[in-house]
């Protein structure tokens, strides 16, 4: 068994064995990687998703709390029988959370590809 095995798709970069210490890289120039345009692109891609998603869920969640707390009459409307808007609004928070989780996981595939390419580049340079 070799010390460092790169998986076919590059998603699993290192795999240690019981005998050898984990395949850690020594003497990595972290600042150089940080300044690399590919790394900056990864950070930008992540931010482009995470920041709007975070703002959206915070606004949607705290908007719900503000309405239920300060303007309960707005949601105190029976929609289907005795099921009211307040309860449906609460349920929509679950749907909102699941949708964001789904969208994030879908987008994370891109993050993984960018990160894997960069790790491969770093490994090549370190050799």
């Amino acid at each position, binding site marked *: 068994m070799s010390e460092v095995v790169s998986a076919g798709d590059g*998603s*699993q*970069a*290192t*795999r*240690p*064995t*019981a005998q050898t210490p*984990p*395949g*850690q*890289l020594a003497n*990595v120039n*972290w*600042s150089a*990687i*940080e300044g690399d345009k590919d*790394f900056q692109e*990864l*950070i930008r891609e*992540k931010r482009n998703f*995470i920041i709007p*998603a*975070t703002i959206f*869920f915070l606004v949607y*969640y*705290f908007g*719900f*709390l*503000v309405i*239920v*707390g*300060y303007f*309960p009459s707005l*949601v*105190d409307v*029976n929609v*289907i*029988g*005795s*099921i*009211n808007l*307040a*309860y449906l609004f*609460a*349920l929509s*928070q*679950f749907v909102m*959370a*699941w949708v*964001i*989780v789904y969208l*994030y*996981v879908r987008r*994370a595939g891109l993050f*993984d590809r960018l*990160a894997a390419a*960069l*790790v491969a580049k*770093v490994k090549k340079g370190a050799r």
Partner: protein
Amino acid sequence: MGKEVQTLLMFGVIVLITLGITFWASRRNKTTTDFYAAGRQISGVQNGIAVAGDYMSAASFLGIAGLIAFNGFDGFMYSVGWLVAYLTVLLIIAEPLRNTGKFTMADVLAFRLRHKSVRTVAAISTLIVTLVYMLAQMIGAGSLIHLLIPQINLNLAIIAVGLLMVVYVIFGGMLATTWVQIVKAVLLMGGTILLSILVLGHYGFSLTAFFDDIFKLTGKYCAVGVLEKGATLCPNGAEPIVKHYTQPGLLYHGVYGPLDLISLGLALILGTAGLPHILMRFYTVPDAKSARTSVVWATVLIGTFYILTTFLGFGAATLVGKANIGTNNNLSAPLLAQAVGGTVFLAFIAAVAFATILAVVAGLTIAGASAFAHDIWLNVVKNGKEDEREQVLVAKITVGVIGVLAIILAVGLSNLNVAFLVGLAFAIAASANVPSIILSLFWRRFNTNAMIWSMITGLVSSVLLIILSSSIMGIDPPGTASTAAHLIQAKAIFPLTNPGIVSIPLSFIVAIVISLVSTEKSAQDTYDETNVRANLGINSEVAEAADIVGTPGVSVGD
């Protein structure tokens, strides 16, 4: 066969299963990575179920059902917040944490801020949150067992739970804890789904019929002052305000009610990302991608569970009735089980609640033990000089100490309200831990002094505000039972019951101001490394070889 005997038998089955898992895991517990992180061999899906298990504690299962049964719609607000919280974990915390840390929250902070005081403060905060959360679970367990089987007294029940938890953790480590958690999560989901189906079945599977019945229930409160038990008029002589159970406002009303709701929401959605036993779970998986998978599965399970609390809580309100539940609303779910499924189902649900508590306290114990043995003992006292065997030994001794301490505190403080303790744990976690974790991962200027003072500010302000709030302070009418009375007989100074809206921003402000006025060159220099490692996973802690640690009947893969 009596109700007590059935319940006792079900409890016995749970204990046997969990001890079996512990025995199996004990032979696979050699290194510190085994002990703290199950060899990092837990798969993303398995860990997701375990995270859900850790999260769906007695407070959620028994507590939320009780809150909804007694307060209608407002009780459901907890359910909503507890799920949305996972977005913070998924988007901001889980993957960077897995990539930069080893076993504990302090690992992530000490990575950039290489200072022993960072580890010490972070470990102390971890120990406090863990202990408070653990007390809540143990007191809850004790009163549940005592109420269902009156022959077992409260203290004996607490001692039994404490001893079992110590046995699980010392012999089985994180591997046993994780599998106990998985088994419990499956039982809890199964029990909750079954209970929900039985409730809906009672209404001919018509959701509208169920809600029509909920609508008929009402609760009362006063615009000013508190409606005394049995009184028909408010203290100022006004008619009380009547609300249907489906309407918002029964719990959060008046001048400060809505603000309290928002404060609670803030503590819930940030607090989860600062709970040591949840954070630690992300170290049990092989890599950041599996950490992400864990959160996805956890979100699916937790979301489903919290939606079903609709049937647990409202079902207890309509089918059992507030009057029949009595004063302890924690019993709502078990009593509902009895109403729709008889005493055998009651025994089953009670046993599930018991398993829930055992599993959660075990997870908490490991988190607490790692904070002492890994952060304080290894990295502060021993200067990071690693000796695997000594480390595992110290960790196990710590588990024993935590166990004894938790038993003594729980027996001594068994009058404390369980929901209050959980709220306190969330408030401390959100105020003390989360600002530092977020800023150390994302802000170059963040430094050691900022972290230490932000943590201390969060810790002290949240505890102080809770002491000054109506959870601790209040004037009780004469004749109030000592178990229900306020600890301090004076008018509450802080008007909210949840301190988050003050303590969380305060902790952030302290961190930001100190970072801006002081400069720590080494902390800025190491930011590049943190940022690269957090995003790329280079040099992250990797899994041990599969032949050392396995999982029962399931092949370990990526």
